[in-house]
């Protein structure tokens, strides 16, 4: 038996590509959720609203100190039993990834916001800019570009963690590879291709992040 069988590789390619699409989808949607929710967490914590800010702090600490896999199981198996909410496995996966990574991105945003000099807040106050306008026109446009590389890195990490979604039945790239391998008792082609596909996604992404880093450092 050959180590590498081209016809077999061709045969499983469509399934793998479909899995790749799922992986891509989960990463993009999960990241979008993480970016938005992380910013909300960061802003709420900073606003020091009594009870709410502490509640968010507690939630963030809790999510950060428990494994993603446990959270996925919880969302997928416990939530329906507790609240009667049943979501599809990909939706559950996106929410799980998004919320988990939001706790990391909220720290990234916090660091970016803290790095904006105090004088910027003071100038905004001196001009009497409303609070919300100060955030949207002055603070965030300075804070976010600085943290784009860090945010990008979390997207790459998330991409590499999407195979965890297999545990709640999402047929992502790895899921497809495993299925293809199990059906034919050949694992070399599926997993080699799966690995290559991950590389094709994550390598350009990390080149992009490095370029961003260089640009941010120049400013």
């Amino acid at each position, binding site marked *: 038996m050959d180590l590498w069988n081209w016809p077999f590789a061709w045969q499983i390619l469509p399934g793998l590509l479909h899995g790749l699409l799922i992986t891509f989808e989960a990463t993009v949607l999960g990241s979008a959720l993480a970016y938005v929710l992380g910013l909300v967490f960061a802003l709420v914590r900073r606003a020091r609203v009594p009870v709410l800010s502490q509640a968010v702090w507690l939630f963030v600490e809790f999510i950060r100190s428990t494994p993603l896999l446990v959270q996925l199981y919880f969302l997928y198996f416990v939530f329906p039993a507790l609240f009667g909410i049943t979501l599809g496995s990909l939706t559950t996966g996106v929410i799980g990834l998004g919320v988990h990574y939001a706790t990391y991105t909220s720290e990234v945003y916090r660091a970016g916001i803290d790095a904006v000099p105090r*004088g910027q807040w*003071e100038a905004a106050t001196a*001009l009497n800019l409303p609070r919300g306008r100060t955030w949207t026109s002055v603070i965030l446009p300075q804070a976010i570009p600085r943290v784009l590389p860090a945010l990008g890195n979390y997207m790459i990490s998330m991409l590499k963690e999407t195979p965890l979604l297999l545990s709640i039945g999402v047929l992502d790239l790895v899921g497809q590879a495993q299925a293809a391998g199990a059906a034919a008792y050949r694992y070399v082609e599926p997993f080699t291709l799966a690995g290559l596909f991950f590389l094709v996604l994550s390598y350009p992404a990390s080149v992009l992040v490095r370029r961003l880093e260089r640009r941010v450092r120049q400013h």
Partner: protein
Amino acid sequence: MSGNIDLTAAPRAEKMIQFDGVVKRFGEATVLRGLDFHVKPGEHVTLIGPSGSGKTTILRLLMTLERVDQGTIQVGGDYLSHMNRGGKLVPADEKHLRQVRNRIGMVFQQFNLFPNMNVLRNITEAPIRVLGLARDEAEQRARDLLAMVGLADKADAHPSQLSGGQQQRVAIARALAMRPEVLLLDEVTSALDPELVAGVLNVLREVAANTDITLLCVTHEMGFARDVSDRVLMFDKGQIVEDAPPEKLFTDPAEQRTREFLRAVIDRD
């Protein structure tokens, strides 16, 4: 530089700024200990004194960047730190602060331009968002002011492309675009290279001469203080040591502490 730009403000009150028994502490340190003073509308007052004497704190209290611990501050007859609720003075809320703050502008030592906006938008942002000016009106106002500070050609530049002196002139234009009744100048030339100081001071001389804005300025530029001030207040340890017109204070100070300070400043220069 063009001359007659209308920077009108001020329905006249007897006292534009009034401090009554103002106490400010930072942790253990008491920076102002029961300060009383007032400034008349249109008056140009310079605060001098050794660092740590509370001069900058006075400007920061007026700009509501700090809160008083005791006492009251009034601007144009309105309480700044407090508001009147049913005959009782209570600490001011954000809405009240926003109202009074509109009468005051400030220029900072470190310029504090918004680096994410070009020069024009730095100047138009607040007039549009706070005063509700139409964009073209705000831009016209900004261009007039840029012409006044000698930077008509820099409207599209970004702050990072400007020298410190140019940035500070933009910051002055930005503050004036809000047409404040009171302009606070906090060591506005201290962060500048020596050769850039004159340009900024000339702009401020022009503002002092051609507007009826009340100026309150903290500076180490004694020549400038002498030129533009109606009164100079000498501070030490959170209190006013001497309050006199510049020609008196700089040539024949009444207080020993003022003499010592002036000698030290002049020796340094």
